[in-house]
């Protein structure tokens, strides 16, 4: 059972860390670019998502 | 198209023959790998004989990497890369020519290594035809994939490190397949070597076809 918990903790914390790293990186970068060139921040919610 | 390919291959082989880099450096390096394996396996003759197929192909891949790097370093010297582009030769012909030259050098390497493992590791060939065919087909696959990745990395400043990192994982099926086919040919394990030859053949065909198309895309880099 300890292996199961370890697996979950490692998996979720890694995903969470990656997600926060991406958000932080996005924040830092978006400060360098004018908001009107960030298409998702204008009027549309359906933005290029890669899906 | 084949005439141009042969022109390029003949030029490469002539340069290799003149410069003797393959004979003076690549082949001794391959031999050295075999010696190092013997040290690593603690001079255990039985283990060496059993693992001959794998050790042989690892030695081929590592020394083949040097041959590929060498083949593309002659194209990056003194503006010949531009000159080759200006010649108007079809990229597919260039790909086939470079791959053919590398293929022939790999074959020469394999002959040297085969003699070395027969003598040093006390390996014995049970199925000579399978042994020879596997060597040919695996070399074709390595040459095709190696040529594609060689031209990709030739103009990068980090080419020495990025080429093995990109190429070696791609060659994993060749290593597995050629090792298994050699297991049959050398009689070290009971497997169907001819079926493995099919995998090697598929690999070679895929990368020769894909490389012929992709080479042009990679050449148009500047």
């Amino acid at each position, binding site marked *: 059972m300890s292996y199961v918990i370890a697996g979950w903790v490692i998996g979720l914390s890694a995903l969470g860390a990656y997600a926060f790293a991406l958000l932080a990186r996005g924040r830092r970068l978006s400060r360098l670019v004018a908001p009107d060139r960030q298409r998702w921040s204008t009027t549309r919610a359906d933005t290029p998502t890669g899906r | 198209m084949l005439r141009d390919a042969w022109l390029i291959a003949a*030029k490469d082989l002539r340069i290799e023959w003149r*410069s003797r880099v393959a004979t003076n450096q690549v082949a001794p390096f391959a031999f050295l790998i075999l010696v190092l394996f013997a040290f690593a396996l603690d001079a255990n003759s039985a283990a060496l004989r059993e693992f001959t197929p794998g050790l042989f192909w690892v030695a081929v891949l590592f020394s083949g990497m040097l041959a590929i790097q060498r083949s593309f370093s*002659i194209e990056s010297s003194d*503006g010949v890369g531009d000159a080759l*582009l*200006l010649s*108007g030769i079809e990229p597919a012909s260039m790909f086939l020519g470079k791959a053919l030259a590398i293929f022939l050098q790999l074959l020469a390497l394999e002959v040297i290594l085969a003699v070395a493992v027969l003598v040093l590791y006390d390996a014995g060939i049970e199925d000579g035809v399978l042994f020879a065919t596997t060597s040919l087909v695996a070399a074709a696959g390595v040459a095709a994939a190696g040529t594609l990745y060689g031209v990709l990395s030739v103009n990068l400043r980090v080419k020495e490190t990025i080429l093995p990192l990109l190429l070696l994982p791609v060659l994993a099926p060749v290593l597995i397949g050629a090792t298994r086919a050699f297991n049959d040919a050398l009689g070290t394990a009971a497997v169907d070597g001819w079926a493995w030859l099919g995998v090697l053949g598929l690999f070679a065909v895929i990368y020769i076809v894909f490389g012929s198309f992709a080479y042009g895309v990679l050449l*148009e880099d*500047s």
Partner: protein
Amino acid sequence: MIHLRGVIALLGRFPALAGVDLDVGPGEIVLLQGPNGAGKTTLLRLCGGLLAPSGGTASVLGVDLTGKRRQVRSRVGMVGHASGLYGDLTVAENVRFWARACGAGAQDVPAALDRMGVAHRLHDVPVARLSAGQRRRTSLAAVVVRRPELWLLDEPHAGLDQVGRDLVDTLITDAAGAGATVLVASHELDRIRPLNPRVVTLAGGVVHDDVAKRDPEVRGVQGSRAEDPAQAESAHGVRDPGVTGGMGAEDPTQAESAPGVRDPEAPKGKRDA
């Protein structure tokens, strides 16, 4: 032959060409001059189809450079700073290889080597053992066998002796006489001037000054002693053997201070070619 409009070319992220406008017709000899880093070599590489334009429109020998650049490449002859020769192959093997590679027969090779004054005893010497001047002559021979429609020469005189320089000049004149276009990037104005070229000055990746685009009066003053209207024609590329003065005797740097041509964004006079 060459039509460039607002051409931008990048080396990595550096805009080596920042909006070049240039038109060159057949039979013209164009001297590209300008300080180091002005974009001369990049312009030659672009015209040879080795570099894709990142902006603007470019067509060379009737081929759009944004598309099938390979169709241009086999028709140009380019000599750059690098020799483009394999050091381990001999002189004859190199020239033969390049002749075959561009589809020309190997039978012209001895003639081309003779023409560039490469001695017979050198034919079987590996290129790596040649002197810089001998190597340059061999590179030129490899271009001669291709019979290019467009010659792109980057400092062709560098490293050559007096005889070699004269050979290059003859090569340029003959090529232009046969209807080919010649672009020469060079700092050696004294050397080029007798060929009566059209002088184009590059600076900061744009055409700073082009003799062919000046007003007739300015061109008259700057051009040569002659107020002769034929002078304008000679600058346009119709070879006039009677006019030998070309740019004239003034210091060429004065050309850069000519009024009205300083702004690269200024409307460009159109020429037909």
